[in-house]
């Protein structure tokens, strides 16, 4: 089909079997269960929503303070507060099912078995387009992060999950490792459909007056623009190392940021902390990507994915 000048670029991308209307998702833990942003954005303009991490049982989360701002970033130690699987299905899914975009559940367990039960149950219900397996939460003792730093454990977990769910499986990786491509490779070998990265960097802040950590949990996860260079580097490394799609996350606050990740090889991106700063940023990023493509004479977002020029 000939490209007509005025035609809008095609923004669709595939993550395994999962078709997204555009490459912009919202990141787990930063967009609630979608409903919280309904007043600010037309959810159906998003490529997808990844909901707050879900565990088998409800979790109260960590003691406050849970949040502290840092230079161009923030530390959080929410501790995976969530309503648990049952209430998620009963209370959150009805709204999400009709919100007009793809919904992915982010899951987290203490053991392979717990992950498997979560995956199985969530695969039985209507309205979920995929699962994001969090093996990288730095804020809970048994937060899956053991799986996220050990390629062998990661492999075994994903291989087990693969047998229990027909849904697209995306594995969310931790940046707090020496070589992230090793973990990516392991979970790709285990049969997941995509990897998403990065989760937060482990950080800390101290109140010099009280001489106490600023977070009750002592350490927390660093997110926001501060981490973008690290995230982009890891996405570039992983995109070269694996054959499955990569979803880029980390400090994305504008269409320009998102495009950097696409050029580095990400098939889609997730917007996290920036939602707090500007609740409308996710849809502004969709529009900005479209405009960039038009200005560059590209009919299709897939043309720019991984198109970084290295001389």
């Amino acid at each position: 089909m000939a490209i007509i000048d005025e035609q809008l670029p095609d923004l669709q991308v595939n993550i395994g079997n999962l078709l997204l209307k555009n490459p912009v998702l919202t990141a787990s833990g930063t967009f609630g269960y979608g409903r919280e942003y309904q007043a600010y954005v037309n959810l159906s303009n998003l490529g997808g929503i990844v909901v707050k991490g879900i565990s088998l049982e409800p979790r109260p989360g960590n003691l406050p303070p849970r949040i502290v701002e840092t230079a161009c970033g923030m530390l959080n130690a929410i501790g995976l507060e969530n309503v648990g699987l049952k209430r998620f299905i009963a209370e959150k899914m009805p709204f999400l099912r009709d919100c007009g975009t793809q919904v992915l559940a982010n899951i987290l367990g203490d053991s392979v078995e717990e992950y498997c039960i979560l995956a199985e149950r969530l695969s039985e219900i209507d309205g979920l387009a995929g699962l994001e397996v969090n093996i990288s939460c730095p804020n809970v003792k048994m937060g899956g992060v053991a799986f996220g730093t050990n390629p062998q454990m990661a492999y075994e977990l994903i291989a087990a999950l693969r047998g229990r769910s027909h849904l697209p499986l995306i594995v969310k990786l931790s940046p707090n490792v020496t070589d992230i491509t090793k973990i990516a490779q392991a979970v790709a070998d285990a049969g997941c459909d995509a990897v998403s990265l990065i989760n937060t960097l482990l950080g800390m802040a101290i109140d010099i007056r009280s001489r106490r950590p600023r977070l009750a949990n002592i350490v927390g996860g660093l997110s926001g623009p501060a981490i973008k260079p690290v995230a982009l580097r890891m996405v570039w490394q992983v995109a070269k190392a694996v054959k499955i799609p990569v979803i880029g996350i980390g400090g994305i606050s504008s269409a320009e940021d998102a495009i950097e990740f696409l050029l580095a090889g990400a098939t889609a991106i997730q917007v996290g902390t920036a939602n707090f700063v500007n609740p409308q940023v996710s849809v502004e990023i969709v529009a900005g990507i479209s405009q960039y493509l038009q200005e560059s004479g590209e009919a299709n977002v897939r043309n720019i994915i991984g198109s970084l020029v290295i001389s």
Partner: protein
Amino acid sequence: MLREIGRLIRRDLLTEDILRLTFIAPKIAAVADPGQFVMLRIGKSHDPLLRRPFSIHQTPGDNSIQLLIKVVGKGTQMLAEWSVGQDVDLVGPLGKGFRIEGPEPFCLVGGGMGIVPLLFLAKKVLQKFPLLRLPVFLGARSANELNFLAEGFNEPGVDLYIATDDGSLGSHGLITELLANQFGAKPGGLRVAACGPYPMLKSLAALCRRLDWPCEVSLETVMACGIGACLGCAVPKINQKGYAHICTDGPVFDAEDVRWR
């Protein structure tokens, strides 16, 4: 709950470190309730990154909102350098405000910057119940601080009680003591709505519990989103394992629901 690009139309430096900002923001002004807050973006730079929460002080005129801001850190320092005419990125009105119910014995208690949202509440209450007498207890460190915070409460209907820590204005001592002295011995219930520093609210909650007065308190915390998405603004609930969230379940809570520490 909406995002609105408002405009700063007035900027008054009340004391060395207290600032009054008035914004044109008709959509937010139209639906704001006393006790609700807005999240203000400080600038276009990524540092400071997060919006800052501020209570709505009042809605003068019908299309504007006014904030009263104390300079305590980086973000508020930058606000102090804003100039009239500039655009401001607001999200609001957010949270659950104070209850306004049938005419009943009702009083307000404010301490320090916690006085800010009470002016809006006093005005709304007196607008709804023009015949009500509304005792308002205001406390602060000194006359210097209190003068500006108490400005605006000189309305017909308000009975103003004042205390300062240093005795430079009104009674010498805590505002909760003044409240107990004035009303603690009187028969009949009194409903209390309060905002102020945590220790004040805690002792007020204890007082009200002892006297069996219903009491609402407005709490503060660091917030990232202000809209219930980040779960960062947790406050321990009483008789429950979990947490409430100040930005959506509050900032105004029944004092009985808070696990005071």
